[in-house]
């Protein structure tokens, strides 16, 4: 027997039906921001109205036959367990702080399943929720819609603020959701962002931060000031677009290459993306920021919070073949991850100092992000060993997914979480890379991965294959004489 702590309310037909989820945690409090929160705090302010890019849509299925009260009670426990989900943020004279509310109330909307089914409906709603910016000083860092079919809750659509969670944290929430629905007793989390913030003000964290800042400084002292040498052209409106690619061939080729070289598929896909970036920028060195989960301290592994930070990958293309590039990328990524543990405010101070010395801060707006929590594709179709992957590329499709006026990225590769296919997307600044170039780059990554299994693909050939997929304008390194 449970007494619902939650109150579904009937509302007029014109307004969406809502329900209230009151929560009461074991404590509230105020603390400085963690390093992960500092990174996001800076990012949301840099992006302003385009910060909806940073929002994290997510869907949780409702397993089994559960009534609304049970689902709302599970949601209440989720909020009570994880302080990050009841945290607001404020600027104070002593710097920005996180404020954990002990109690409060989340209002959720109730929506009816569309013809596409509950999960797809929830995915659509989550994406819609993600287009609205959070007021970080007042709002709870999540919004939720319960999707019902025949009066029964079937899925939850969420958007979370990136100040509250990263993709690893979302995977953790998915992992405990089933137990919460069942009403299982779960041990309370022992480590919350307020503990993390305290730890990051002590050794050895301060030493690691200093070392990371030294590494970044050594790169920033010499890196080209611009991501591209060519001048900007006329951008599209909105200026920043995301082109997506769905490719089983990409994933299958990455798995095969990774097994062959005993490295991760992350390193392999990263190597291909960095190669294509180097080719399009006409440089023998690719410099990219790596979005890194950063959960290296055992206490942060179960932490539902934003922990990720950026590493700085410096990859000098060996020019011999793709397997060597993968190995070089793997080593360079280790250096990057190692130095992805720092106080973002200290890092920003160093970058500003470099900016004063060099006349301006170098533009590091090229990124690679692997969102897969465990770096695998568990539901990839089974293929015979050695099976030719080229025919699979016929099933690859590309599409434009999103657009923003001001996300600031020049180039941002994201490897998505789909368990059954390689989903690689690329955000470009269309002033530098037109959309057909972005598409050509994605297909170039796929071709490089597939051909790289059977031959050493030299850089000149990568140029040709990117060009073969689309007209390249602007990038000087891709002219016919190069």
């Amino acid at each position: 027997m449970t007494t619902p702590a939650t109150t579904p309310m009937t509302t007029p037909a014109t307004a969406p039906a809502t329900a209230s989820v009151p929560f009461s945690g074991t404590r509230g409090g105020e603390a400085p921001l963690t390093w992960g929160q500092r990174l996001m705090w800076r990012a949301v302010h840099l992006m302003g109205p385009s910060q909806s890019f940073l929002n994290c849509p997510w869907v949780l299925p409702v397993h089994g036959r559960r009534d609304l009260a049970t689902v709302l009670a599970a949601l209440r426990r989720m909020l009570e367990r994880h302080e990050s989900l009841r945290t607001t943020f404020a600027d104070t004279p002593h710097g920005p702080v996180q404020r954990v509310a002990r109690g409060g109330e989340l209002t959720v909307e109730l929506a009816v399943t569309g013809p596409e089914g509950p999960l797809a409906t929830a995915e659509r709603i989550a994406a819609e929720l993600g287009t609205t910016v959070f007021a970080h000083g007042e709002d709870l860092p999540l919004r939720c819609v319960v999707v019902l079919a025949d009066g029964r809750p079937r899925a939850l659509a969420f958007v979370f603020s990136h100040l509250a969670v990263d993709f690893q944290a979302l995977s953790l929430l998915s992992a405990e959701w089933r137990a919460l629905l069942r009403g299982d007793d779960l041990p309370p989390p022992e480590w919350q962002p307020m503990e993390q913030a305290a730890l990051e003000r002590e050794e050895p964290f301060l030493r690691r931060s200093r070392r990371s800042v030294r590494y970044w400084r050594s790169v920033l002292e010499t890196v080209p000031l611009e991501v591209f040498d060519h001048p900007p052209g006329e951008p599209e409106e909105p200026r920043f677009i995301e082109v997506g690619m769905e490719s089983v061939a990409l994933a299958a080729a990455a798995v095969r290459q990774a097994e062959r070289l005993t490295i991760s598929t992350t390193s392999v896909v990263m190597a291909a993306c960095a190669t294509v970036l180097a080719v399009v920028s006409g440089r023998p060195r690719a410099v990219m920021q790596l979005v890194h989960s950063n959960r290296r301290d055992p206490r942060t592994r179960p932490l539902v919070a934003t922990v990720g930070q950026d590493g700085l990958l410096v990859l000098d293309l060996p020019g011999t073949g793709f397997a060597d590039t993968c190995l070089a990328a793997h080593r360079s990524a280790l250096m990057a991850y190692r130095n992805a543990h720092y106080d973002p405010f200290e890092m920003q101070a160093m970058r500003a100092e470099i900016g004063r010395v060099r006349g301006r801060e170098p533009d590091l707006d090229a990124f690679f992000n692997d969102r897969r929590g465990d770096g695998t594709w568990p539901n990839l179709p089974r293929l015979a060993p050695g099976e030719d992957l080229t025919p699979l590329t016929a099933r690859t499709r590309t599409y434009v997914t999103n657009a923003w006026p001001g996300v600031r990225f020049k180039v941002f590769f994201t490897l998505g979480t789909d368990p059954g296919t390689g989903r690689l997307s690329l955000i470009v600044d269309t002033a530098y890379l037109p959309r057909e170039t972005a598409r050509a780059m994605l297909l170039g990554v796929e071709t490089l991965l597939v051909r790289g299994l059977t031959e050493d693909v030299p850089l000149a050939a990568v140029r040709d294959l990117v060009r073969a997929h689309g007209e390249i304008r602007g990038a000087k390194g891709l002219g016919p004489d190069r």
Partner: protein
Amino acid sequence: MSGDLERRLADLVAAVSDGEISAEEALAGEHSLSALGLTSLAWIRLVDAIEDAFGVDVDLGGDLSAFDRVDALAAHVSDLLDTR
């Protein structure tokens, strides 16, 4: 003595890999740590753990091959302890 150091390092490998690699597998040295499945993140955790446990500063600027086997790693850490 170097056996003790190898044992401690093998225990660290087991800890940072969340038990994916047992200390015995790491100690046996039949396969490299990457072949045993040490991920990049676990590898970074291992370097952090070595620094915290032994109070040394590990420089990753040079040859990283020492980090793929426990015996070579023990020799490397031993050098770091001597020059501390």
